[in-house]
């Protein structure tokens, strides 16, 4: 059973999103999004397919660039940074891809060692210890020498999470972390999110998994028609009387 923790009482603003607009052709995926993300919270972006949840998540790390608006991380506007300047941001904000996005020509160990070799001066021995210790957090230390193709989908996601947390980032962005996973792997990933929260790590999730949303999330933002239609704690969202929101939660409409 996933243990849900209480929302932190003292809130420190970490990411400030203001007036984000993003167009794909004529379609406005984001039409003026304002959102604050606080240190140590678990925030879920919820909404139907094509509402721009993943685009918003990608924008938080500079993988997508909004057409208008700003995303402040500290005093830096991510939207105007160059790829070179984004490197510093990406050391502090990690991204967990939907299917892990592991480098398929590298072993699990090499995948985890990749960011360490790129951004630290650790010796090979230190890297090995760090890799083993991080893999043990996701329960996959025995898979260290396997290739991604030898792992199940759930294991690949857990390795993806391990690779993301190995640099000890302040924020982790999860794109559909539990979609399509069996209950065991789902629970493992949700437990990792909660353990990281205990260490003050901020998590932003994009998911359709209602169980995940209501078991680990502090706040939920519901996206509809390019805007945030509802924002509140998981409990508040559950009891809001907005028929569109309730239709989405109950699965009757979106």
């Amino acid at each position, binding site marked *: 059973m996933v243990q849900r923790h209480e929302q932190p009482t003292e809130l420190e603003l970490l990411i400030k999103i203001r007036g984000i607009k993003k167009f794909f052709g004529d379609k406005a995926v984001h039409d003026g999004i304002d959102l604050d993300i606080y240190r140590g919270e678990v925030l879920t972006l919820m909404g139907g397919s094509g509402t721009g949840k993943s685009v918003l998540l*990608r924008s938080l*790390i*500079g*993988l997508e660039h909004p057409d208008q608006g700003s995303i402040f991380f500290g005093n830096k506007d991510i939207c105007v940074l160059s*790829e*070179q300047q*984004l*490197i*510093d941001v*990406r*050391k502090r904000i*990690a*991204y967990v*891809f*939907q*299917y892990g*996005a*592991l*480098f*398929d020509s590298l072993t699990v160990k090499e995948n985890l060692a*990749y*960011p360490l070799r*790129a*951004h630290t001066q650790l010796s090979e021995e230190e890297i090995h210890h760090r890799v083993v210790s991080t893999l043990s957090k996701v329960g996959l230390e025995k898979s260290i020498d396997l290739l991604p193709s030898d792992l199940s989908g759930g294991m690949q996601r857990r390795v993806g999470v391990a*690779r993301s947390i190995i640099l000890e980032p302040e924020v982790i962005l999860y794109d559909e972390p539990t979609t399509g996973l069996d209950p065991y792997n789902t629970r493992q990933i949700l437990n990792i999110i909660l353990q990281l929260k205990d260490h003050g790590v901020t998590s932003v999730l994009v998911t359709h998994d209602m169980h995940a949303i209501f078991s680990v999330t502090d706040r939920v933002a519901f996206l509809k028609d390019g805007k945030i239609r509802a924002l509140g704690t998981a409990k508040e969202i559950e009891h809001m009387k907005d028929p569109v929101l309730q239709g989405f939660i109950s699965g009757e409409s979106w």
Partner: protein
Amino acid sequence: MQQTKYFIFYFFERLFKTLWHLLNFAGGSVALLLNSVRAIFTPPFYFGLFVEQCYKLGLRSCSLVFITALSTGFVMSLQFGYGLERFGGKLYVPKVVGMSIMRELGPVLTCLMLAGRVGSGIAAEIGSMNVTQQIDAIRALGTDPIKRIVVPRVLAMLLMAPLLTVFADLVGIGGGMIISMSELNINPDFYIYEGITSLKVTDFTFGVTKTFLFGLLISVTGCYYGLRTTGGTQGVGQATNYAVVTSSILIVIFDFILTKLFWILEKI
């Protein structure tokens, strides 16, 4: 009348799309090349990745280049041998084979083979990485895909295309000698002597110089289409196809331009 209108509309639509595609390719590949040049001179440097690509793209193409060059040498020797025999010019075979392989067939056929093997491989590999979000993962992990993916391949091709061409030149001329010996009854000592004395250093250098550009064209085109891949496995197939066709056409076009240029330079 309606059909004619439809045909004209279709023709101009295709023409516009092709021109648009060409402009996109020209702009995108030049931008990619400039970014790669900038990345080559800024740390960190990934020497290990460069060596790995030299092995994958270069050394593993040796057998393909060997077979192509050997067959070319055989064919050239046979064609010129029997062709020139009619005019009593069989003894010119070493000169003609040596010069045509050094100046033209060695560089062009080697690089066309590389466009097929290496260009397609680069586009398919990078394209697959793109559609499985591995390129995004490289960026998200705070590293530069140009530095890690493009630069090692471009540098490896800049080194390996000329080396493989030298190898192809030797094999091709050797192949010509085998046929001259066995089919045309030309003495091998005569073949080697004639080959060495009639060839000029510029025949060799101009042939090899072309391959630096060809290597660049193959690698940049493959990387460009790989990095632009969208649409899953179908997109990977399309990127591979575009990479091979585009780099092959570019090799043929630039071969003519460079050949003309080199002859002008030689006459000065």
